[in-house]
């Protein structure tokens, strides 16, 4: 049972929900299948629960290619459609240089130095949102 269960989870990226924020920590290589699964997971979780932000932590990623760049901008575009902000956090210098050399400057993407900074960045917007939510809650 465990043996059968571990193989589909190999390379599976967990999506953690912390209040209104989804935290995704990428580590090591990102394979095509894992990336697709991840996009699906983020999309479903963001749609199901009221998520205002997605933080993608890249501090454990040392090697990137154009595919990774596309995955990041796809996730950002997708979450924007679901009314959530995506923040990429903790990108290493080598990774940033590689992405720039590849011509992927990811213009639509928000970035932060680390996850804490990313949560603070989202928190500023979350703080603005609840007022609308409370107003909506108070009106009936």
């Amino acid at each position: 049972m465990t043996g059968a269960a571990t193989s589909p989870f190999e390379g599976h990226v967990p999506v953690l929900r912390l209040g209104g924020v989804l935290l995704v920590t990428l580590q090591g290589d990102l394979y095509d299948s894992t990336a697709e699964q991840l996009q699906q997971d983020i999309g479903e979780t963001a749609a199901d629960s009221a998520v205002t932000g997605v933080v993608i932590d890249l501090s454990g990623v040392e090697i990137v290619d154009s595919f990774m760049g596309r995955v990041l901008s796809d996730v950002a575009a997708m979450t924007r459609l679901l009314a959530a902000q995506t923040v990429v956090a903790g990108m290493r210098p080598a990774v940033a240089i590689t992405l720039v050399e590849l011509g992927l400057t990811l213009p639509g993407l928000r970035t932060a130095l680390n996850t804490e900074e990313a949560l603070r960045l989202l928190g500023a917007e979350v703080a603005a949102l609840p007022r609308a939510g409370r107003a909506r809650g108070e009106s009936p």
Partner: protein
Amino acid sequence: MPEQQVAEHETDPAEEVGAFLRRRREQIAQRWADAALFRTVYTVSRDDAVDAGRTVVEALAAVAVSGRVQDAEADGFTVVREQLARTAQARARAGATIAQISEEMDALRPPVTDLLLDELSESPAEHLRECTTALTVLMGTLRLVMLEATTIAGQELINRQRLELLEIATPVIKLWEGIVAVPLIGTLDSARSQVVMETLLDAVVEQHARIAILDITGVPTVDSLVAQHLMKTVAAARLMGAECIVSGIRPAIAQTIVHLGIDLSSVLTRASLADALAYALQQQGAHIVPNPASTVEPR
């Protein structure tokens, strides 16, 4: 002994020269120790000069015996290459030009030739001529090896200095908590801008900097290539979550950028480092308030 000499007359002139060098190495080393090249380098003790000379003679003998008098890559030379480079460097430091060093090298030849002529005075003229030629060629090759070693050593020095300069020329300064700046001085080429980018990004990680300032006051000209490097650096810093400001844009440079049609709209720019710092502090939520106790009149 005479039999041996007769036997040697039959051998190859290069090998004979090799054997001669081995036999007379002490004498040659003693004579070379008085030559300008060794005398000026080994000033501390004459014995050192003799030792150095002996090593060179042995190397020459090994090369001659192997019959490769014309080959600067001969195995025998590898032993002395470093020593020759050091000697030449010492001379160069003392102000000698390459031509002078070469001349001093050439001055090593006559003492050896004299010895050879003495030793082979009994030999037939034909044989004598061949041996002298072999020796001359061998000394010429030694000269080539020395000059080559000198050039390589010089090249290595230049390369090392260039690397050092790259590192020295890109200091990252912490201006405030979370604000770092890189004052760029001199021409920005691809190699330098790569170093700038790397050091800046590393500093962003280390200092948890939210704002990085690239000051180009010291960059004499900005062309499309430099602008591209700047934009790359800015984009990379942004990917890491830091905001990047380019400051120190002089009016002439602003004009050039507009003339070249470079679109720097994606880059936040300020005229001076002070303006950039003021903006950065404002972003950080810090405000600079003049001290009322200060006697300096505000402008």
